[in-house]
């Protein structure tokens, strides 16, 4: 597959926005879906649909096999050791809630510390906040430096004998900072502290090898990987899927149910209560295939070329302030323009067919630290190209014209 004609693989790019071609720079929010993924959803519902893991008729068997095949595909893709380490969730948010809730229930006592960072998305802070409320845990924040980076020493500073979890993002969804994941995990291992990586932004843009990383948990949102919405993956190391109690209760996750006691299934079933997404899981196999056909290394290269090009162009405009200047950055450029609120920028850009996001991007703590209520964010996916950046920069000029700056 070639990047040159890649927009043609995504039906959405046939669409015009206010009469102009769609320039989609909001992939960090959610990515568009290739035709292969969309078609697989229809194909499955039209030909093979049945609930999975419940019945023994032909459709149920086919559906269950397809569903479990995706689990194997995900397992190989992220190089997990065991298939039961792959748990399907509603999204990264549910994945992190699952860990915070079940790990918290079993291992967190009053005064125990959870170390997160100032870069975290609310999804990787609010669930830990619940443990603060319910269990008397203490939350510590590793600070970002002026470039939007957090090095391993900053983590070291905050680790104490009471640190029971280190949870941080693989790639910041505001600054694009690629965290020194391996170093932080290595540090945590020396202290025997489990590590959860919020891989929501990492997974679509990086080679993943969870065995090499040796993280305890890795959370993924499928909808940012050119996959269906309403689906996520939690990778959890074998020892955790064995030790953690179940999360939601319901059909499928039990072993034996009596009036006075209940025993639970093994992982991954233990963590997959109720009727799961089905077509979505099946179609996610096509998302991974799409990524593999392009090659994740090629994706990284492609995107970083566009990112470099974009950063360079934006830097030339004095009224544009790019947020963060990390040495290792992926796919994300957040910025402000003096005198124009990000919301207004987004509206004006939209008039040129450009989709970006304006707001705090679910990172209020970072924005408070930066002293700004909001920012504009252009984020890059496989389908973007340098021309998209050119249109973006032209439109930024227009913002200034509208606002007479």
């Amino acid at each position, binding site marked *: 597959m070639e990047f040159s004609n890649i927009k043609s693989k995504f039906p959405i790019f046939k669409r015009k926005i206010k009469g102009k071609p769609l320039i989609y720079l909001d992939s960090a929010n959610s990515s568009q879906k290739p035709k292969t993924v969309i078609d697989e959803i229809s194909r499955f519902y039209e030909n093979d649909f049945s609930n999975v893991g419940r019945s023994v008729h032909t459709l149920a068997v086919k559906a269950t096999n397809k569903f479990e095949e995706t689990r194997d595909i995900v397992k190989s893709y992220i190089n997990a050791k065991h298939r039961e380490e792959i748990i399907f969730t509603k999204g990264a948010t549910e994945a992190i809630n699952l860990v915070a809730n079940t790990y918290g229930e079993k291992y967190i006592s009053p005064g125990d510390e959870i170390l997160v960072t100032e870069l975290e998305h609310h999804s990787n802070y609010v669930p830990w906040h619940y443990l603060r409320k319910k269990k008397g845990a203490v939350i510590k924040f590793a600070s970002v430096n002026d470039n939007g980076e957090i090095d391993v020493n900053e983590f070291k500073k905050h680790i104490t004998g009471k640190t029971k979890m280190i949870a941080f993002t693989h790639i910041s969804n505001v600054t694009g900072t690629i965290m020194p994941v391996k170093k932080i995990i290595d540090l945590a291992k020396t202290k025997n502290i489990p590590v959860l990586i919020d891989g929501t932004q990492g997974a679509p843009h990086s080679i993943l090898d969870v065995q090499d990383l040796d993280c305890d948990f890795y959370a993924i949102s499928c909808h940012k990987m050119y996959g269906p919405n309403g689906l996520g993956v939690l990778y959890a190391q074998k020892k955790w899927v064995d030790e953690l109690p179940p999360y939601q209760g319901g059909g499928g996750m039990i072993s034996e149910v009596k009036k006075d006691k209940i025993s639970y299934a093994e992982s991954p079933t233990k963590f997959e209560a109720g009727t799961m997404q089905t077509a979505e899981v099946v179609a996610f196999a096509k998302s991974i295939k799409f990524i593999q056909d392009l090659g994740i290394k090629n994706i990284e290269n492609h995107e970083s070329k566009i990112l470099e090009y974009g950063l360079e162009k934006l830097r030339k405009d004095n009224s544009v302030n790019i947020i963060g200047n990390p040495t290792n950055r992926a796919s994300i450029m957040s910025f402000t323009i003096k005198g124009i*609120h990000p*919301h207004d920028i987004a*509206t*004006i850009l939209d008039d040129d067919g450009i989709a970006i996001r304006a707001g705090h991007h679910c990172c209020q703590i970072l*924005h408070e630290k930066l002293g700004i209520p909001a920012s504009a964010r252009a984020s890059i996916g496989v389908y973007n190209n340098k021309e998209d950046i050119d249109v973006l920069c032209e439109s930024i000029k227009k913002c200034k014209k509208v606002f007479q700056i």
Partner: protein
Amino acid sequence: MELKELYQEIILDHAKNPRNKGKCEGYNHHAKAHNPLCGDKVHIYLKLEDKNISGLSFEGEGCAISLASASILTDTLKGKDLQFSKKVTDDFLNMLKNKTKITLNSLSADQITTISSLSGVQEFPMRIKCATMAWHTLLSALENKGLK
């Protein structure tokens, strides 16, 4: 071009030079609001004397639409009768919700033009909250009986 409807001169003027910013002297009602999606914030202060809004001001940060809206609100209703102000607020909210026109007799033609400048927001559904937040907050402040 719709964009020009949205960012009219009047709006840009109010956004860049908001009127009645700060806490008005002797305010006895206030309320604040926050749009968690974009971070817009507004805090309305008002002094109610004998069913008359004798003082009216705001603090806030946000986009041009939300700042202009708060500024126009304070400018329009300061010194006005309570019932009348509620009526204008209703009419304003109605204008954005149902695309009706503002036609109150007791507003000057100028004031009607100013308020109506925000009607361009009708075509930008995601921005309606920006335009209405200050007005909803005014209503909250009026309900809020406590001194300061």
